[in-house]
């Protein structure tokens, strides 16, 4: 029976599509967007929580900024889980970047808090610690998954090599 064969052009288009779909820089852009939006939201929320005597208009503006920040966080997280999905190696890179970024942010906020005796900086540091905790959990999960996939890969390679030799 005749077996339909794909035209060569389709295969070429497909390889180009794969290269675009799997590009690391496009993922890192969305990761940076997520981290920047989360940081902005943390700072704005810290100000809202600690500055009691803000004028009404300023409070409304900060609340609007916080909502915008959360929206960007949700959008970037949606892209990274549905459109530019993170494969295991990407997750480890993203986890390391997130841990580094959140550490720097938290240390900076704590330092600013002590230097200026700023309650807002301490509140931002508290949110930085929460973000750091999430980043560490994601990195640990990615590394565990890497270890389990690598172990299974080695088992399969041994089994297949054993049958071939």
């Amino acid at each position, binding site marked *: 029976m005749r077996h339909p064969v794909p035209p060569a052009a389709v295969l070429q288009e497909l390889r180009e*599509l794969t290269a675009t779909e799997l590009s690391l820089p496009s993922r890192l852009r969305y990761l940076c967007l997520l981290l920047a939006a989360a940081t902005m939201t943390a700072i704005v929320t810290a100000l809202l929580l600690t500055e009691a005597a803000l004028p009404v208009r300023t409070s409304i503006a900060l609340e609007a900024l916080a909502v915008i920040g959360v929206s960007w966080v949700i959008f970037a997280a949606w892209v990274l889980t549905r459109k530019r*999905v993170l494969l*295991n190696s990407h997750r480890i890179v993203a986890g390391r970047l997130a841990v580094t970024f959140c550490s720097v942010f938290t240390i900076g906020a704590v330092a600013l808090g002590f230097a200026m005796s700023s309650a807002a900086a301490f509140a931002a540091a508290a949110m930085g610690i929460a973000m750091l905790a999430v980043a560490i959990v994601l990195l640990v999960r990615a590394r565990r998954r890497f270890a389990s996939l690598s172990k*299974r890969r080695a088992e399969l390679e041994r089994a297949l090599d054993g*049958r071939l030799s």
Partner: protein
Amino acid sequence: MPTIDNKNETDELLAIRCQLGEPAAFDDLISRWHGPLWAFVRRLAGTDDAAGEILQDVWIRVLRGIPRLREASKLRAWLFGIARRTLMDRLRDQYARAPAVEIDVEQIAVESSVDEVDDLVVLEEALDGLPLIEREAVSLFYLEELSLNEIAETLGVPVGTVKSRLHRARRLLRQAISKRG
């Protein structure tokens, strides 16, 4: 010739390499599975153009979905399941747009058979004339060599239903061939 165990383990290894994020694994995945997926979709879609468009969507779904594939050993059933869902979505959209037409997917499949090609053998004509439901079961079982369990997972139906579809398909093929012969 690779055994069934070897084939399953090779597929599982391929899926794991993709999940780990090894770029060469995606080239291997495409080299290994694009042909069979194309053959399956082409048989059901009717034309090269339609099959090409559907296959692009299939591969986008595969690339985006592979990190969530829990059982890497079921790669084959997973791939054909995505191809089938994409094809069905396309057919649904296509016929939803057609105004005031009674939708009968089985009839559509019969009408979309590839009659314009001159050099088809009788069996292939008969296969193209099968209703979509039976045609996909026959394609997966006899041409793509999936097991009954894998076909059941691909189609999202019990194994008994797959068996009855294959039985009906064989009966229809016999009738079609005897009419011509």
